[in-house]
């Protein structure tokens, strides 16, 4: 019975596909799986929107939306309806084709990232051998859609916002890749299923998740920082800095296209949290061996929603970083630390079992963290201001 519940979706698909003729079956399986993704994650997006507004409210001593539906549960429906019915303005001087294509390209690319995420035990759409590389290839092309949006609106604010967003996404994409390379080094394969299987091992009932190893924890912290910056969230939400940039690269978007950007951002956050859970938090593996009876996909979605709550928590707490602080932090702290993390992971791999590698790796990482934190990030004393006029 337990196994049936765990594989309920797989069995359901096979049962449905059983009715179709043989040659149609592989196509039908893919279509059903894609349809499932296109239903669950926008559904999760609606829940996250409500979670965010109520969570932020509670953090600021207020209640958050509770008027639409019982306890505000229909608020996402109201938001969706509002953005669908709002008029979709396109500025006259805007470049209509690129202006229209930008959100479409963003949503398509973000959803393609889900093809490789292992949502549950053998519930991966495409079990690709180079799954992680595919995921980052898709992640890398979101910058282009951000640029298309910013440039095509022919508006200084949006162009500035796009420039900032692209610069930020590029400089935080490198640490994102580097911190996941450490995981690949230890697992020995780029396929996300293999990574989850490597972590799905238990000793004394405790799982072998990578976050419980020194290099894994450091990698996860850096991954989380880079992921927050990659999705333009909370401390790094400079591109849509309301105070100075109106709304960054989606200033000139309204109505459905704005909702698409909104959807793209949230679905991107869900997918990067999914990847973080898969790489460091053991994907769909249960936190304790005794809890193994719970279906695997519940653990995956639980971890994704947990990291969404952390995203919201960060948004409720941290002020926005300035552009130079943001860049400084990326290139002077996050990237060197992830590089060092690679060496520590290598040392971890070749020092063999035993307590020695725990001590050495943690010591190296802690010392590096403190030293780099103190040296790299100390208050820069600002000399006389030098001006550079645009020639």
């Amino acid at each position, binding site marked *: 019975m337990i196994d049936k519940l765990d594989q309920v979706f797989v069995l359901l698909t096979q049962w449905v596909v059983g009715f179709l003729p043989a040659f149609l079956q592989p196509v039908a399986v893919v279509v059903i799986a894609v349809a499932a993704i296109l239903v669950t994650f926008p559904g999760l997006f609606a829940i996250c929107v409500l979670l965010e507004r109520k969570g932020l409210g509670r*953090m600021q001593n*207020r209640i958050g939306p509770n008027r639409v539906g019982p306890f505000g549960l229909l608020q996402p429906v109201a938001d969706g309806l509002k953005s669908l019915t709002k008029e979709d303005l396109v500025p006259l001087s805007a470049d209509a084709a690129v202006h229209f294509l930008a959100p479409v390209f963003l949503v398509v690319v973000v959803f393609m990232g889900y093809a490789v995420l292992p949502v549950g035990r053998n519930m991966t759409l495409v079990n690709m051998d180079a799954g992680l590389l595919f995921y980052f290839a898709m992640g890398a092309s979101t910058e282009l859609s951000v640029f298309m949006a910013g440039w095509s609106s022919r508006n200084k604010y949006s162009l500035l916002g796009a420039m900032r967003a692209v610069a930020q996404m590029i400089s935080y994409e490198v640490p994102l890749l580097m911190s996941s390379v450490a995981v690949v080094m230890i697992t020995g394969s780029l396929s996300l299923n293999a990574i989850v299987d490597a972590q799905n091992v238990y000793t004394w009932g405790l799982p072998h998740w990578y976050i419980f190893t020194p290099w894994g924890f450091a990698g996860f912290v850096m991954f989380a920082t880079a992921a927050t910056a990659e999705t333009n969230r909370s401390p790094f939400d400079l591109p849509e800095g309301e105070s100075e940039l109106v709304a960054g690269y989606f200033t000139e978007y309204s109505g459905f296209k704005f909702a698409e950007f909104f959807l793209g951002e949230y679905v991107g956050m869900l997918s990067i949290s999914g990847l973080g859970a898969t790489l460091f938090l053991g994907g769909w593996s249960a936190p304790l061996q005794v809890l193994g009876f719970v279906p695997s996909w519940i653990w995956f979605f639980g971890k994704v929603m947990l990291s969404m709550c952390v995203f919201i928590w960060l948004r409720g707490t941290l002020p926005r970083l300035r552009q130079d602080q943001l860049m400084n932090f990326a290139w002077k702290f996050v990237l060197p630390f992830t590089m060092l993390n690679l060496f520590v992971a290598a040392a971890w791999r070749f020092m063999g079992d035993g307590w020695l590698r725990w001590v050495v790796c943690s010591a190296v990482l802690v010392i590096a963290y403190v030293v780099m*934190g103190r040296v790299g990030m100390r208050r820069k004393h600002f000399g006389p201001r030098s001006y550079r006029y645009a020639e």
Partner: protein
Amino acid sequence: MLGEGILKGLAETARNFAGSFVSAERLTTVEYPEQRIAPIEATRDFPFLVYDGTDPEAGLRCVACQICEKECPPKCIYIVKSTDKKPDYVGKLQIYPARFDIDISVCMSCQICVEVCPFEAIKMDTAFELATTDRFGGLLYDKKELSKSNEHYHAIHPTEAAEVDARLAEEKAKGEAKAKAAAAAALAKAAAPAAATPVPKPAAPAATVPAVKPAEGERNRDR
């Protein structure tokens, strides 16, 4: 160490988040239509005309002196004087406003009319849910809609109303005392000429003149 501040900040918001479900002072929202904040005594929204007694027409304190109309910065008060007179709380015959309009949509609740009114006739009400569908006529209140009883004034601004009533009562008492004294003096004057009719004529006009002066004095003071 890098990141300490972030962790402290996160702990603070977490405390806020958890506290909002538990302790009252971490959830300060008052859900407006269902719950309401206790009205503060000094709230002021839009003016209303005070009348004593039960009949709004007779007891209206306003004497149409039009000071408030002149002083009102946004000019939202419109007064038309009456032709006849009616007695006020002291019993003196005073003009009353035939028409007294305030345009609520223009009024900015600055309370200058209350400060300049010499007759304590106009006070600030605390009712603010006055939204209407009709933008023009709906928000132009005439005398009937504006005039409210003194009891209502006591209900919304108890201490202030008490002071005003005390002052009015004391004035009334002084006025009556003066009137009584004037009446007594007039009586004494009338008795004195009877006793000494041979006294020369000029004394008579002197007697009548003082009788008139106190009345005027009284009006100036009232001004």
